[in-house]
Each structure stands twice: as C-alpha cells, then as structure tokens.
C-alpha cells in the first residue's frame, strides 16, 4: 500500500483532516458536527497515515499511547460532570462562562465543551489503538 503518491500526499492529508476534525469538534454545538464525528475523522486520518507510512511515525507523532489518550478523554468527560457539584447542581449539568478576551469579543466556554473534547479524545484514542495494533506487522 505504501506507494510513492500515497506516501507523499498522506502526511499533508492527515494534517488537514486533523485540523478539520478539530473544526468539526468546536463548531459542533451549532453546526453539524461534534466530538464523536470529529473523533472519527481524526481516527481515520491517523489510520490512513499508518497505512501509508507505517505505524512507527504515527506513534511518534502521537507521542502518548493512544489508549492513554482515550483514558484521558474519559477522565476529562467525567471531570466535566464533577465540576457542576461545586455549583451545587446535579452531575453533568451544563455550565457556561463568557469571558471577554478583547473588547466585544466573547469566547463561550462550557462544561459541555470540555465533555465533547473528552468524547473526541476517547473516540480518537480507542479507534487509533485498534487500527494501529492491526496495522502493526507481526
């Protein structure tokens, strides 16, 4: 599968796909998208990278073991629910902040966003774990 064309184009494509997946993740609250879909896009990007250039560069690029990434995402999602306890509301209640970073520019931050980032990490981590483990030569 590692033809010259694929090897040349895939690193670029992977980068684009991951960026796009992050856009999908962040835009997901208002436009089609979200953590789950974004995670699938990023996972297929890494899987493709692995097929074209071998597993080792993917592992190097990810730095952490993908299953650790997934576990961290799980933790993040769970913690986003715990935060609501400090406000005295039930587990996983959505909380919003609108800090103004410049005059008139508000950045909406929320626990659902944190939760969605966790979902993204779990999906990416778990699927990349499976894909890379399968791609690895025995």
């Amino acid at each position, binding site marked *: 599968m590692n033809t010259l064309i694929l090897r040349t184009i895939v690193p670029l494509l992977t980068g684009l796909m991951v960026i796009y997946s992050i856009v999908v993740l962040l835009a997901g609250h208002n436009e089609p998208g979200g953590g789950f879909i974004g995670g699938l896009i990023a996972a297929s990007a890494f899987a493709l990278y692995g097929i074209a250039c071998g597993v080792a560069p993917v592992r190097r690029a990810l730095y952490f073991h993908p299953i650790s990434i997934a576990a961290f995402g799980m933790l993040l999602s769970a913690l986003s629910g715990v935060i609501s306890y400090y406000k005295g509301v039930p587990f996983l209640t*959505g909380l919003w902040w609108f800090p103004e970073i410049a005059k008139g520019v508000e950045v909406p931050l929320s626990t*659902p966003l944190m939760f969605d980032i966790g979902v993204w990490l779990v999906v990416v981590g778990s699927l990349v774990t499976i894909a890379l483990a399968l791609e690895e030569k025995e």
Partner: protein
Amino acid sequence: MIGYLVLTPFLAALLAPVLVFLIGHRASWILALVPGYLLYRFYEFVPAVAKGETVLQSHEWMGGFGINYSFMIDGLSLTFAFLILGIGFFIVIYAGGYLKGHQKLGRFLAVLLAFMGSMLGLVVSDNLITLFVFWELTSITSFLLIGFDNEREASRRAALQALIITGLGGLVMLAGFALIGLVGGTFELSELLSKGEVIKEHGLYSLMFWLVMAGAFTKSAQFPFHSWLPNAMEAPTPVSAYLHSATMVKAGVFLLMRTYPMLGETELWETVLPLFGGITLLIGTVLAVRDKDMKLMLAYTTVASLGLLVLMLGVGGARAIEGAVLYLIAHSFFKGALFMVVGTVDHEAGTRQIDKLSGLRSAMPITALAAALAALSMCGLPPFIGFIAKESIYYSLTHGGLHEWTIAIVAIVGNALMFGVAASIAIRPFMGKWIDPPKAVHEGPVMLFLGPLVLSITGLVTAVFALNFMQTNFFSPMVNAVAGSEVKLDLHLWHGINPALILSVITVGLGIAVFVFTANLKKFFDKVLNFIGWGPDKGFDQFICCLTWFAALITRFLQTGQMRTYMRVTFFVTALILLVPMFKLNIWPKMPNFPELRLWEIGVFVILVVGIIQVVFARTRLTAIISLGIQGFSVALIFMMFGAPDLSFTQFMVETLSVVIIALVLTRLKLMKQDRRSTASLLFDGVVALSVGVGMGTLLMNITQAPIDLRLSEFFSTYSAAIAHGRNIVNVILVDFRAIDTLGEITVVLITGVSALALIRVKAVPDRKTKTSQASSKIAGSEALKETS
C-alpha cells in the same frame, strides 16, 4: 456533620502510607489520633443520647429512590461507635508495634483505617442502602486484611472464603432490605423502626426475615457459616483482635439488634435465633477446647460468643436484650485484649502453640497481667464486667418457662467450656515451669502491651468504679434502642443470693473441671469429630469446586471459540426477537405508498441495491468488504438527502473506518481469499440473514407507521438554543441533555479499545516467541561463522 466524621478515617487511610514512608512504624502514634479525635467528637452526642434522644442527619444521595446518606445516632449506634473507635485507637498503635519494619505496614494501616471508617458508617447509617454499602465495604476491607500476607496460599484461601461467604450473605440481605423498603415505604431505619407491626403482619414477613438473617448469620459466623472466621486467623493479629473479635463479626449481631423492633419478638424469630445461636455456641466451644493454637482457640470462642449473643436476642424481652448488650460490650474488651496478648506472645516468643509455652510470667509480667485480667472477665468472675454480663444473661433465663430453662442449660455448658479455654490461655503459657520458647523472650514494647492492658483494666474499672456512669450513658440507652421501649436497668456487682448467682457458681465449678480435664476432653472431642469427618469448611471447598465445574461446563457449551457459531447464535436470536412478537401479535406493517422519487434519489437507491448484491455474490472477500462500504455510503447519502447531516456525517466516517478495520483484520487472519462454504451452511446463513433483514425492515416500517409522540422533539427544539446555547440539537442532546448516556457510550468505546488491544496482543505472543528464537539462532549462527573464520 456525622457524614464528615465517617469520612475522616478514609482520608486518614490515604495519608497512612505517606506517613509510614516518612517516619516508619511511629506513624501509628499519629494515626491513632484519628480514632482519638473521633471519640472526642462522638462524645458530644452522649448527653443527648443518655436523655433518650435520637440524633438524625441526612444528605441527599439518590433522593428519588429514597436512598440518602442519612445517619442516626441512638444508644445502639453510639455504643458501637465507641467500641469501634476506642478499640481501634489501641489497635492502630498495636499494629505499629506488631508490624514494625514490615514492608507493607503503610498499606496495612491504610486498609485498617478504611475498615474503621466502613464499620463506623455501618453502625451510624440510618438508610438501609447506605448501611448495605458500608456493610460490603467491611467485607472488602476484611478480605484485604485477611489476605494481607498474599504470598501464602492459606491466607489467600481464607480471604476468598471470608469474602464469598460474607459477600453472598450481604447480597441476600440486600434483597431483604429492598423488600423491607417496599413494604415499609421507606429505607430510613428511623422511620421503619416504628412500623414494626406493618412488617411483622405482612405476608412476606418470613421471606424478609430469612433474607436479613442470611446477612446477619454469615457476617456473625453462625453455624454452618462459621468456618470463615477461624480461617481468617491467617490475618496478622491486630486484624484478628479488631475485625474478627471486637467489631466486624459483631455487625451481624448489630443488624439483629437494629432490626429487633422491626422483625423481632415473633414466633419465627424466637425459634430460629435460639436454634442457630445455641448450636453455634456449643460447636464453637467444643472446637475451641480441642485446639492447641491459642489464636484459633480464641477464634472459636468468638464464634461461640456470637452464638450466645444471637441466642440471647432470640430469647427476646428486655432482660435478655440487657444480657446480650452487656455481654457484647464485655466481650469486645476481653476478647480484643486476649487476642492482642496472644499476638504479643507470638511476636516475642515465636510460637502460639499452648503446649510449647510455659512460665512466661517472669519474662513478660505486663502481658501476663493483661491476660489474667482479661481472662477473669471472660470467665465471668467478679468483680469484672464479664461477671455482670453473665449474671444478666442468667437472670433473664431463670425468669421464664421451660423454653428459657433449656436455653439456660445450653448457656451453662457453653460458658463452662469457655471458662476452661479462658483459664487455659491465661494460666498455661504464663504459669508453671519455664520452657525455652523458640525465640529469646522478653516483654513486648509499650506499643504492644498498651492496648491489652488498657482494655483488660477497662473491664475491671467499668464494673467496680464506673458502673453507674456506664449504665446511664451507654448500657441503658443501648438496651432502650434495641428494645424500642423504655427499660430501667439496675446493675450491681452484688445482687444477693438468687438463681442467677447459683447458675454462675455451677458454671464456675464446671469450668474448673473443664480446665483440669482439658486433655481428656480434647481426646473425646477429637474422636467425635473424626467420626463425623465432614465440616462446613470442607463443604465450602466442595461448593466452590462444584461451582467452578458448573461454570466450566456452561462456558464450554456457550463459548465454542468459533466465530461462526457466535455470529450464527447472535443473528439467529436477533431474528427471533424481531419476528416472533410480530407473528405472535399479528402486527404487520401496511405496505407504504411508493413515493415519487427524483432522479438522483433513484440513482442512490440503485447504487445501494447493487452494493448489496455485490456483497452477496462477490468472489473475493476484499471485494465484498468494499461493496459493503459502497452500500453504507449510499445509506449516508440518503441520510444527507433527507435532512440528517449529523447522522450522514457519522455514517460516512463509520463506514470508512469499518472497511479499513475489517480489511486489516482479514489480512491478519490470513484467511483464504475466497469464501468457501458448503451449500447447506450457505443456505442456513442465508435464511438467518434474510430473516434478520426482513425483521428489521418490518420493525422500522411498524415504527414509522405508529403515531409519533412529539413531546420530546418539541422540548429539545424549544430549549436547545435557549438554555443549552446550541443550535445543533443532536450535539446538544449528546453533550448536554443526555450527557450521562454519552458518558456510558464512551466508556463502552474505551473498553472496546482496551479489549481489542489485549486480544490483538494475545494473538501476537506465540509469533514473538518464534521470532526471538529465530533471532537467537541467527546470532548463534553468526557467532559460529566468526569462529570458523
């Protein structure tokens, strides 16, 4: 506030390993401050409780189900809390001395403190479910402590046995609690206790009774569930002294006392409890007399004492409860002290076999004193608290009919045998001629003798100097709490000559005889038990053996290890689930009107159908997989055309990834390129596949033809942007409205990832082995080459 007090030991448990790492075994002096502080805080409740008040506090947990972190402090729970914390204080110090320099001391103290918290939570819980949670926590911490020496087979077995017996009992008890909660309409004990009549007169009373008894009898080691307790002596002595004599094993008795106003004083109660208690008392004492290991002797007398307590609660009535309450308190003092004494002797002299020790009094004077004081209380001799307790028991038994007198005889025999054991433990190792023990013996350090000395002296002081104080602050409130009514206690060391005193004298006489003729009794009991040759301990092994055999049988039947069987079973069952209800209820969907389609819509459908046909008739597997992808993409396109961009988006990605992953799996499995199946199996698989397809299709048509309740959709579209700040309803549902579902789903995703990784690695192991052997042979070969050159 009580909730926070209960949490304190758990926090200290987190701190314990760090402290031990920093300052070694001296950490236990600091950690003992935790129970000390808690004692101080719980003392604040004493005046109120002495006046007969009940302190209630509640934090909501799952309010909708009536489950709360609610706590109740009355005479019963307060006295238990004092026993747990007071004895715990000395045990923590003792543990530091006993396991000084042990590598895992930090872990040990941590679990010990966690147990303390669990036990404390158990006794002060007001909610039955909270009580159950703490109950199981004590089982788990007990498991960890019994198996502390985890490299020894015996201690692992003992730990597992204790966990299985008490854990199973606890689960059965939970069923009982659920029933009580349903019948009584609440899980709060404080409310249930006043509804005793409702529960006792309910048709399911006997079921509730037996379910709760299962929990109490397993935890409090009643025959035939007692065998885990002597085996639990594999644990280090601080554990035996604390969990398996003074506190945890009394949880069962605590439960009986707690539920007494609710379940007690019925015919069933007054038949079953004396029966089990009596048998346990006799068997426990017989086994205690027979044994040579002092720790085991004490363990069996603990079994016997628990039997006696159950027996007394079974007799019922205010006086019997008074006897049980006093005996329970007295027992915690003297048994805790004696266990620690035996531990100290074991620690310093290197053995705890009673026939290998003699004349230690000169070498270990303080320990000998503690042993003597504790044993006198256990023998029930004046002026110790043990004497007062036994007098109360006899008093209640002599003021009744034939039933009570029969029980009195059982109690006398049991007490006399226990007298013999207590005397043996206090006299034989310490008095008599000096025998050289395995180790050069000397008095234990202060950490080791502090606990037993204080506890045994408490047994004396309580009876002689503090009887009135204890009576008003602890004994009376506890008896009142158990009996559920006002009871006046009138305790004195000297009541004058009455039937109870005469029974006491008989007991002492018999006890001395037992002590003198211990050797003969031992031989006799040995003969009897050898004749029987079977016990619950063996039974437990047989039970486990049967269980694993049965599990293996089922597993072999269900898990053939063939993917094809799994798939067939799964899809066959799916087809049944889909089609049987439709046949049975005769609900078939109407054929929908064929809609007008635009050209491109027709195009997509054609691609879809061609994709499916290609999957079925493809010659190689790879083509089939890719065709499956084409079919999936067409579905995604349909989603897109009919206004579900999110769904379509996801469908595209899922299809892409599944084609990639299935292709990767297939290349690893090294299957044949083509799928060759016999016609028969092709036919079977085809029929199953078609049935599932038809079933799914008709189900979907049924669903779309049924009237749709739009309330949820309306709710989501109204509030999605308004309160959840998102215009994409699907995403808002996923991450906000129904985030807990998503949390569950990503957990499944994560677990799938972990298990796939594990499975793929398992597959890789033999390959790696052959690789390394090849590599090593290569290296060997190259070395051989070098040599020849």
